[in-house]
């Protein structure tokens, strides 16, 4: 187990290193630079050159990369070229929106996917089971943006129960308002992701129903449903954990879209705006942090999987 964990950790570090080089290089290929954007379309070459020099953009790429990565090793993700604010601080501030949003979205997704997924598998072939799985297909195909707009129309504009956009300026010192502000966005992501997840739950459950140990349990006197719940669902749980790990990336992408739609000051919206402003020092720090987060979640999922699945432990 420890050897497995160490190998996996080495892979994680290698992944991060490759990611950092890719992020750094691809950003340098983007056309247009921050100095010209700061100067605007009035500035002559002299003004742009003066700004570029002040920002230290003239250094060779290798030097820029090494000084960035050197900082990362010392725990410094870098500073914004435009405001001088540390990237880590900005990420921490915006994470107060995005992380709760992601957690709430995932909760919504699980609340939908688990009961309905199992139910639609158990009721397979009957009208209600078919209706459930067809419904899930339909909802999963709904674009997140459209789902969000409909929810806003009903719950914010018509009923006036929840805010249509924005996050309270007081932030989490006003928890009720903060949660209310995140509710619609979280439901929007959660419903669509949940419908997708539900199909995984359904097929995992179906697979479990057919497993030898479930059939054996049924043969020994349990009802099919009892056998499924007692012996089948643990294996379903395993596949769900794996899929959830993969969905972290999906939820981050969803947050990018949803934060625009609901004008939430989160990481996704910040990232899009920083790319548009060509604040490359900030963007590379943000992307590395996000990539690192996804890789670490994957690492954790693998370890958890290993720990709780006896079959994998024995294979060692």
């Amino acid at each position, binding site marked *: 187990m420890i050897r497995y964990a160490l190998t996996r950790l080495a892979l994680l570090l290698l992944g991060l290193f490759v990611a950092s080089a890719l992020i750094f290089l691809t950003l340098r290929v983007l056309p*247009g630079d921050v100095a*010209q954007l700061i100067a605007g*379309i009035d500035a*002559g070459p002299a003004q742009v050159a*003066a700004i570029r020099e002040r920002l230290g953009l003239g250094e060779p790429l290798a030097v820029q990369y090494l000084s960035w990565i050197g900082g990362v090793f010392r725990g410094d993700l870098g500073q914004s070229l435009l405001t001088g604010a540390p990237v880590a601080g900005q990420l921490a501030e915006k994470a107060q929106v995005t992380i709760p949003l992601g957690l709430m979205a995932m909760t919504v997704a699980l609340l939908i996917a688990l009961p309905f997924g199992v139910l639609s598998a158990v009721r397979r072939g009957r009208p209600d089971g078919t209706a459930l799985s067809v419904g899930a297909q339909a909802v999963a195909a709904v674009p997140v943006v459209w789902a969000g707009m409909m929810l806003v129309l009903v719950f914010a504009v018509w009923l006036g129960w929840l805010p249509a956009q*924005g996050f309270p300026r007081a932030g989490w010192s006003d928890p009720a308002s903060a949660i209310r502000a995140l509710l619609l966005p979280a439901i929007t992501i959660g419903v669509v992701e949940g419908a997708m997840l539900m199909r995984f739950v359904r097929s995992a459950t179906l697979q479990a129903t057919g497993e030898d140990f479930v059939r054996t349990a049924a043969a020994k006197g349990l009802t099919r449903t009892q056998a499924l719940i007692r012996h089948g669902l643990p294996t379903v749980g395993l596949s769900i954990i794996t899929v959830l790990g993969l969905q972290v990336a999906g939820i981050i992408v969803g947050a990018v879209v949803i934060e625009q*739609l609901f004008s939430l000051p989160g990481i996704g919206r910040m990232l899009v705006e920083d790319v548009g402003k060509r604040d490359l020092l900030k963007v590379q720090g943000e992307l590395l942090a996000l990539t690192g987060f996804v890789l670490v979640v994957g690492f954790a999922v693998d370890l958890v999987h290993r720990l709780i699945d006896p079959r994998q432990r024995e294979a060692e």
Partner: protein
Amino acid sequence: MLRRTTVAAALLAAGALLLSACSGGSAPDASPTAVTPDPDAVVTVRLVSEPSNLDIRETAGAALDQILIDNVYQGLVSRTPDQKIEPELASDYKISSDGLTYTFTLRDGVTFHDGSPLTVDDVVWSLEQVKSTASYSDSDRLARVQSIVANGKDVVLTLSQPDSSLLWNLTGRAGLVLKKDDTTDRKTKANGTGPYKLTSWKQGDSITFDRNDAFWGDKAKVKEVVFSYIPDNQAALNGALAHELDVVTGFDANLKDQIEANGDFTLVLGKSTDKGTLAMNSTKAPLSDKRVRQAIRQAIDHNAIVKALGAGQTLYGPIPELDPGYADLSSTAPFDPAAAKKLLADAGVSDLTLTLTIPSFYGTTVSQILVSNLNDVGITLKVKAVEFPTWLNDVYINKNYDLSFVLHTEARDFENWANPNYYFTYNNPEVQKLYQQSLSATDEQTSADLLKQAAKIVADDQAADWLYNGASIVAVGTNVSGFPSVNVNERINLAELAKSKG
């Protein structure tokens, strides 16, 4: 001297602006209803594009001018809603008859937001800094100023030659008065003399102004103004309908019915200097042929564009109605597809394919009409929608384009047509000469007449096409008054803003 054209400003805004545009009258005071002001009111205003930092000295873009000038930072002079010039930090000013000496008398009792009193030294220092620092935007607008000296309570500017644009330039960034040797971090904070103090900037979300209770003039009528940055038009509409916003700028005119339906908002149209500019690269064949450029202009149905945008008016030359030197130049390229075809045939051009480079935030309304109009005369138009930084790189810097669309928002920016190095690629020495003469003129009328002549030549040369003159479109809550309506992409002066209870 390079003139800046603050496209950067409109940026993301443009999606909205494009779908908008105007025809409205120019009542300086937007909101029609009289209200009993609530001195403790908080007014939330939707803006489209957030500045990348708050450094008004160095960072270009009307997103800064729009909110910071007049409200937070002030100059010796300022502009009124109908684009006239009036004293601000100067209580008075005099211009010598030869146009070479400007004497400003400093107002008494003005303090900065940090409490320190404004002195003539601050003024001299501020102007000197702008003039001598190349990386500051608008530094070159003080090019004709030879010396800036304090004389008692006066500040005297001596010019090397007359400059009819100087006072106007002093109403903008070049003229802002900051505290001498201030250590405030201008990128994230501000220390000005205006009726509002900048109290917070939550990046990616909002900027908040509070009333400056120590202001030298009439105090602001509201306690707090929150600028909420919402790029998405639908989110802005939802926010307004859910009563989270009091004012929505950059409103999409095509959503008029939706916002007016519940009676809580009025849509106010104001004139603007937004010029939807279709630049044509005249250094490349066949666009180097004037007949081809004219054919393109005559193939375009400008009225259809204005109609599709839902507001605005047509424009057939480089100067909009709000600026000096305007004339109706529609005769230079009337809509006539048959004439366009003939011009193309005369020029020996057939099977022409052109590429339009357009920043993607402008949406597709205009490019769709262009594709269809040009197709009608046998030109295939390919649309290349790009990110704004890409546009800057390809079109603005490298001049690597056939046709380009950008909404130029800045007032009085004729200078770009007199600059052969600008991305317009327009080089006519006669226009350049007329422009210099208009700068050197010592009375306004002469200066405007010279600009008018120059603008006529630019349009006659078919240097570019002007697809429309946009409108400032603002949805104002019925309990809000005094929100400006004219050219709000450039300035939002909040001096008269008030909100009633409830």
